């Protein structure tokens, strides 16, 4: 503080003594401090302390869990895929020891990843077991009355969404009840994949939903993540094999912040925007996404080791949207 600030002596003292930092002094060591860290952190490294409960949402298994529905064939010969989705109020652990009163599809955030092939008939039986009116609004082609906007489903009510899976690509679904921002921020969203009739090349496939949580309800996120749990894939790195093609279905639903991004270390990836075209748009290591934007990215690691991936907004990365790939060489 320089003497040119124009503060009175009293102001100066006030700022010193009663201002935000104007607290005492003198160190004493924290004897017998409760060591919360269950694993040794590197000193001076950002991250949460402790681990989320094993009984809650498992970010590693969500990563590769695809719901193809109950499959049957319609008289027309068309494949029918039926899904049951319920809106449920549930408290979820978004960082170790930090609980958020979420609204969920089937008790999890993100909801189940619905997967169908282009031209299939999709039938989603939706039940609202929550405390507010909800809907499911699917991205993709469908009739106007299947849009999940003008047909709010009241608590205790139900609705059947039925449409053909098209166009091929990577989509999402989310609640479109009002206030929209609240219903999305609370966790009502999931991924909807429509595979092209000609299958994509064989690859190890994963889903990453980029999201965040406004735990103190002040209109900005405290916790950021890929798949809900802050630092989930730093604490449990995603295993990979050298030379194996990796395909990530990347969906940004982040509320409150205008943009999000994906940055891959020591590598580049091919970008298929909205997953709706056969040829990649771009070869890069940093991809910017607004809310609702989603892309398929593909890459391969040629060398073993631990590689980081994260939002290239440093703030988001250090508030939870950061993870590791553990690449192993099967030949070694």
């Amino acid at each position, binding site marked *: *503080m320089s003497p040119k600030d124009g503060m009175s002596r009293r102001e100066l003292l006030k700022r010193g003594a009663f201002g935000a930092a*104007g607290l005492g002094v003198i160190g004493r060591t924290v004897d*017998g401090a*409760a060591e919360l860290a269950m694993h040794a952190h590197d000193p001076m490294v950002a991250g949460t302390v402790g681990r989320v409960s094993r009984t809650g949402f498992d970010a590693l298994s969500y990563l590769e869990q695809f719901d193809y529905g109950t499959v049957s064939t319609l008289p027309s010969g068309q494949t029918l895929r039926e899904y049951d989705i319920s809106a449920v109020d549930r408290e979820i652990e978004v960082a170790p*020891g930090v609980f958020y009163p979420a609204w969920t599809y089937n008790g999890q955030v993100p909801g189940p990843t619905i997967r169908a092939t282009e031209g299939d008939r999709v039938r989603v039986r939706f039940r609202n077991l929550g405390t507010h009116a909800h809907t499911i609004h699917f991205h993709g082609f469908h009739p106007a009355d299947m849009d999940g906007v003008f047909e709010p489903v009241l608590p205790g009510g139900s609705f059947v969404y039925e449409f053909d899976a098209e166009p091929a690509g990577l989509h999402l679904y989310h609640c479109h009840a009002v206030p929209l921002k609240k219903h999305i921020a609370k966790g009502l969203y999931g991924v909807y994949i429509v595979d092209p009739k000609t299958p994509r090349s064989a690859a190890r496939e994963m889903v990453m939903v980029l999201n965040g949580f406004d735990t103190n309800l002040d209109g900005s996120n405290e916790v950021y993540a890929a798949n809900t749990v802050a630092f989930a894939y730093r604490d449990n790195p995603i295993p990979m094999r050298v030379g194996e093609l990796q395909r990530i279905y990347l969906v940004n639903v982040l509320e409150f912040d205008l943009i999000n991004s994906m940055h891959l270390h020591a590598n580049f990836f091919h970008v298929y925007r909205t997953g709706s075209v056969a040829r990649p748009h771009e070869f890069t290591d940093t991809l910017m996404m607004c809310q609702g934007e989603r892309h398929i990215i593909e890459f391969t690691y040629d060398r073993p080791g631990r590689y980081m991936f994260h939002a290239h907004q440093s703030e988001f990365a*250090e508030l939870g949207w950061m993870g590791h790939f553990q690449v192993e060489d099967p030949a070694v």
Partner: protein
Amino acid sequence: MTERRFPLWILILLPVVMLGLVVASLSQGGLLDALRRGVPPVEELTFERVVLRPGEIHVDVVNGGPDPVTVAQVMVDEAFWDFKIAPDPTIVRLGRATISVPYPWVKGEAHQVVLLSSTGLTFEHEIPVAELTPEVGPRFFGVFALIGLYVGVIPVAIGLLWYPALRRLEQRWLNFVLALTVGLLVFLGVDALHEALEAAAQVGGAFQGTMLVAVGSLGALLTIELVSRSRVRREGAQGRAAVAWLIALSIGVHNLGEGLAIGAAYALGEAALGAFLIIGFMLHNTTEGLGIVAPIARDRPAIGRLAALGLLAGAPTILGAWIGGLAYTPLFATLFLSIGAGAIAQVVIVLWRVMGDGASRFAPATAGGVLVGLLVMYATGLLVAV
């Protein structure tokens, strides 16, 4: 009369016992739970102290809210960070905890510490200018004693040097100086009260900062009044000496509060107590010495007694600076500053009595003296402004 059938103490205790029974039945039965149903817990954490060591930030927090709070995560500068918390992550009502964060803080820059509770609530604290917290040692005590000496003891001692001049003043002008002392004390009293209320705002809710100001200031006023009543009422030199002691005491308590603030500010490297500021403090506080000797100007006190009066008024600044630098908390500051305000108010009342009837109180010399006292303090206060 039915009341006569019971001893007095039973009648006094009866409502207390009834209250106890009602409280017990409330906390045993499900009524409290029913009242709480569906309402999320009210969480409140107050930051009491921040200590910066090389590569480490320590914060002391106190739970001033009605419910326990569990600290789940710590963010520094918008990043989750490693931390330890002692004695326990769950802090009960009125409980305390110390959180240690290994963090490469940057000298001279601002940092923000946010605690994230298990329910997702955040408690935020800003370090406006990061500075290494001084360690306790001879150097610490030496530096803070020196600061207290310069801003408290020396100015008061210099003010006492007006004593020979006062002795030669006519009674009319002596009354003027006495009135000037009243103005000076009113200024200091309002200042102490203001600072006490400022500090009270930082105190955790359960500790009722503002009410603490009322209890502290009125408590001090009434206690000193009770204790000093008989001495001050004595006729002649003894009574006047008692008034002088009271003035010195009240200024001393005020200076203790001032020392607290200076100590805390200096320890954090926030207050650039340069030569200019110290000179300002000296000018401002010198008038305090004048106030002490005004009532006893005619009484030829021994030099030893003058020195004792000066020390009583000035030395607490050193003590305050030590406490402020060592263990400042808003709670202490609120308490000391309100006691100071109460002590000053009591002396103003005593002087008001001494100054005689209504006619002499509002005579030009007295009323003018009070006004000049206020103006002198305000003007020298301006000099301190940086």
